[in-house]
């Protein structure tokens, strides 16, 4: 069996190599990322449902705000911005 091909994405400016076919949410969680975004009142938020329903995993992907990380598959050069990098 061949090893899965990997791609490089950038998370808050830092490079991360992940297996092709991984969702952005899985890529971040596998890397030990916990806080994806903050709620209106400033609480930490992380993926809950993993299937696009709860909207807890929203991040900025390629400059587009409020993208659900669990529904986007990684691709070469994809840029992710989490709450850690936003004011």
């Amino acid at each position: 069996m061949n090893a899965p091909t990997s791609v490089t994405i950038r998370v808050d400016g830092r490079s991360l190599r992940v297996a092709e076919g991984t969702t952005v949410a899985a890529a971040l969680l596998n890397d030990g990322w916990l806080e994806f975004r903050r709620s209106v009142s400033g609480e930490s938020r992380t993926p809950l449902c993993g299937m696009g329903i709860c909207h807890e995993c929203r991040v900025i992907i390629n400059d587009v705000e409020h993208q659900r990380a669990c529904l986007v598959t990684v691709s070469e050069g994809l840029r992710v911005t989490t709450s850690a990098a936003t004011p």
Partner: protein
Amino acid sequence: MTAPSRSDVIVIGAGIVGAACARALAREGLRVVVLDADFAGGGTTAAGMGHLVIMDDSPEQLALTALSMESWRELRSTLPVEVEYDACGTIWVAEDREQRDAVANKQAAYREHGIESEVLDAEGLYAIEPNLRSGLAGGLLVPGDAVIYPPRAALALLDDARRHGAILREGCRVDAIVDNGVRAGNEVLYADIVVNAAGAASAALTPELPIVPRKGHLAITDRYPDFCRHQLVELGYLTSAHVMTSDSVAFNVQPRATGQVLIGSSRELVGWDRSTNHVVLKQMLDRALQFMPSLSRLNIIRTWTGFRPATPDKLPLIGAWTPTRGLYVATGHEGLGITTSLGTARLLTDLVVGRMPSIDAAAYAPTRVLTSVSAGL
């Protein structure tokens, strides 16, 4: 808390107009009871955009909105932060040269009331609202206008009324207005003065009032801070709002304190059908996209409808309703009730206590309706 069997004033309706009237009357030392069929601020007040705006559709409308804005500015520092008072100003957006040249008249009318405004050319417009489409001609910036969260504002006004002795009873549906009182279920409550401030529902209690529910749709997006910074309204809005006979949509977007963008507006006369009309909703959003194409990348998280209490002559009904003893009305504000609630309360209170109002009350007198009925108009 039980209401005393007889009070000085009963206000029917704890929307923003009823709340403002209750507050102003309680501050005069009158014993006020406010009754709401549902809960405070839960009707039309909760459905609207919350724009505090100077409007010059008619001289009377301009006088009332100017008086009201003066009151909002006085009140501002006392309002809790949850009211989200944001003095973001309004930009009336001009699509072409003709519209932009016409804003000079608007500016002159505003100036007569001491209201500051600034004509923007296209460059000036894009400098402060870069997400508007290119090719627009400019606009008129009214920096004194503001945005609030209306249901919370209604509660703040009611809190103030209660500090001055008023009593609020929610879930108390008035079935009928009688001479110097109301009937609500098995109860009859009496007062020297009854104020029908039931908004879109006020004609159910005073059937001669020519008030119809004028339905509107709104959509709100997720949070995109600084997507727009002012309340933006197309200059064609006044035409759209004025024509009563047909359905219409107009471009009107508003930045919320949360970073959300509130998108309006539509007008329909379809009775009390509150279901979403997807055709109208699409027209409304298409209109918004014509002015702000990049709205298309924003997620809308909720849409809803509400009913404006509309009158045939586009002015509210404020003052004594002479056919019924002790009855006053404060209703028919259509889409302007959030702004004009405070001016209405001032006017009504002056009339109730027998003071000369600071603006001519005749134009808003509810009895004009009786005159037009008897004249066969």
